[in-house]
């Protein structure tokens, strides 16, 4: 069984898994990176969101074969010690309740800001609207994205 070469958080990794293994489980089980979360397995909830070549993707819907040759960034690799403006804003606004959905939210929010540095509420609705939180952190997520867009100011 050939191994797949995937760059993860800047490191080239070689993973010997079945071709149809979702990237989510390659990350969590093969590489031990458990920051990316499992929520539905069907790409509906967004908890498994990572960056693939700069784009936010749902890692439960990307196979090892499809990930081969690409550069993946997970929540663990988003920044050095939580210094990304989105992560900082998330802490300033105390966004998380249980926190389980937040890595996925943060990966989507950071990709949004990379493409749209000053997103409108409509743009936030569109991308975060595809994510699920059961704890009701939505109002704070919106505030935190605006805060990160404003360079950390409220």
């Amino acid at each position, binding site marked *: 069984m050939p191994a797949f070469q995937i760059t993860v958080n800047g490191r080239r990794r070689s993973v010997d898994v079945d071709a149809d293994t979702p990237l989510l489980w390659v990350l969590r089980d093969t590489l031990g990176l458990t920051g990316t979360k499992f929520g539905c397995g069907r790409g509906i909830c967004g908890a498994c969101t990572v960056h693939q070549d700069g784009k936010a993707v749902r890692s439960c819907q990307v196979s090892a074969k499809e990930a081969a040759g690409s550069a993946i960034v997970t929540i663990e690799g988003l920044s050095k010690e939580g210094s990304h403006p989105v992560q900082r804003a998330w802490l300033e606004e105390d966004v998380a309740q249980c*926190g389980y959905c937040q890595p996925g939210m943060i990966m989507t929010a950071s990709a949004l800001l990379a493409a749209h540095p000053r997103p409108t509420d409509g743009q936030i609705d569109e991308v975060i609207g595809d994510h699920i939180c059961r704890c009701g952190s939505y109002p704070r997520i919106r505030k935190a994205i605006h805060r990160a867009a404003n360079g950390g100011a409220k």
Partner: protein
Amino acid sequence: MTSRRDFLKVTGAAGAGLVLGLRLEAKPRPGETTGRPFHPNAYLAIRPDGMAVLTVPKSEMGQGVRTSLPLVIAEELDLDWSRVELTQAMPGPEFRHLGTGGSTSVSTTWTTLRNAGAAAREMLVGAAAKAWGVPPGQCRTEKGFVLGPGGRKSGYGELAEAAAKLPLPKAPKLKAPSEFRLLGRPTRRVDGAKIVTGKAMYGLDVRRPGQRFAAVLRCPVAGGTPKAWDAGKAQAVRGVKAVVQVPSGLAVIAESTWAAFKGRDALAATVTWDEGPNRDFNSKGHEDRMRTALGGPAEAARTTGAAAPALAASARLVEAEYAFPFQAHTTMEPMNATAHIRPDGAELWMGTQGPNAAQERAAAAVGLKPGAVAVNVTLLGGGFGRRSGTDFSTEATEVAKAAGGGPIQVVWSREDDLHHDQFHPATLHRLKAGLDGQGGLAAWSHRIAGGAVLRSWLGGKKAPGQAETEANGAWDIPYDIPALDISYAEVEVPVALGWWRAIEIVPNVFARECFLDEVAHAAGKDPLAYRLELLGKRGKVKMGEEDVDIGRLRRVLELAAAKAGWGQPLPKGRGLGLACHAYDRRTYLAAVAEVSVAKGQLRVHRVVAAVDCGIVLNPDHLVGQVEGGVAWGVSALFSQVTFEKGRAVQDNFDTFPVLRLPEMPQVEVHTVASGEAPSGMGEPPVPVTLPAVLNAVFAATGKRLRRLPVTSADLA
């Protein structure tokens, strides 16, 4: 509080510095002495280096207990909050009541934690005073230091060893709330930095040396069992190690989660099920049985005066049926548990709201004494009552025992999680109100039919006071009505039932507060004015064993209405609706919802909540709980679980929709300042949210919705 003798017996000698598995000795900083830790009770220890190690006796599911409970200790102990480390309590002789739920974490630990902190503070002061030769009364404490006359100053770490030698104070002096320096502030969540960097550890993230993974194939019909299967098909899948049978089904053991899921899919294709006695269970049949039960014998939950003749004699009788469906939890983290059976005992790792119950049931399942099962409580990726269930942890223990070898993590897919939830039971409600000639409410009857959650949790045993439990929210109706008849008729349910955020209080208050709006309308009265009239100017009213302060309920009702602009003109197509409740007779809330309906779509624009839950430990987290409860309540308006041929029909978020960001209303929270002991806010916002929204729909459209979930056909 633990006596010194008990403390020494449980932890062995105090000298080792190893207490409850914690390494309490640390390298001293320059100028500090080596010495022994100060560990006067199960909740706190001060290391020689001054670091405070606090033990959290409740499970963290986002409600903020890992921040608020240690803050209570830190407040009374005058700690430096930046020099605090936390450990999670494990069930055992020192921690018999770790169960987390019912919005009781703060209310039930408030006094214990305050005393624990205050006692330790007095001992540290005593140690300093003794060393300085001054009266303790001339000393004070601040941020981990004892300060004495003449500029004397000693850190808690320095004093630890001497403090440990002093007797435990029997009645330590507690601070007055006006003296609080830490509590009452918007302190940020302790685990925030870990959460945003992916380092927070939930049950699913546990990785023990040599850990394998398992997926369990369970009969889709509750109570069904596998008759025949071909394990070989599963074992042919790369990474699959074994297939073992456990009471809940067939466990596929593998090297990775994906291999376990794949192996299970292969196995599923080969299984013949004996579907058992529940294969015909379906929602329609169940509703018919509930409706029949509404007309049959029922258990009284509360009876006042003589409602039946009063209703018969009333000038106008208002009557309605309300329906609330089966609900699912869908915590974002699906159920899971990691179990390791060793020759001398077992160890578990999972997010659980019931560590003690989980310990007992896991032990019983594999023939161990509870004390031989160590339970490690991780963070919970959502609880909402689902993780009070012990099914998933007991199952993992059985899997690990059957498979042998090292630790195994049993992972539930989202489909498993929905199909095998411990469901919130459907209920049907029949309400009757008798109005006199002047629109006064002379009699009120509310009968509830449906499954009993507590009975399911107890494995079929009926608990005393079942009717009162299942009628919570109905029997404690706060309005002054001379004749009341509140009753409950149990209807058996063959699927597992469990506690779902605010439990029976949600459907009971939904029915009650919506029907009260109907009655107000029939009486030609404004819903706010009518409620105030019915609450009256009473003070404390006895309900069962407890006192409900009607004044506090009036205050939140008036506050919410004022802040929402009740009575002021609204744009066309918009409506306001309100509801209020004294949740479990201890937390007072009112909510006003503003909605609009267009093209069969309901939009909840705003929910204005007024809350009174006693002393507030963290005003920002309080707002978070109200936001969360409102989100949960609005979400519940649009989802349900239905059953056909003994199976749950819904299996993922496409068929069980939950609230998304664009649908989230603006939430305004107005808190009534109070000196009462904290009474809880995890669940209270949920029950008032649903009727506030539905009453607003009536105000906006003239349509009275009595059945949930709301569909676009209802709103067309």
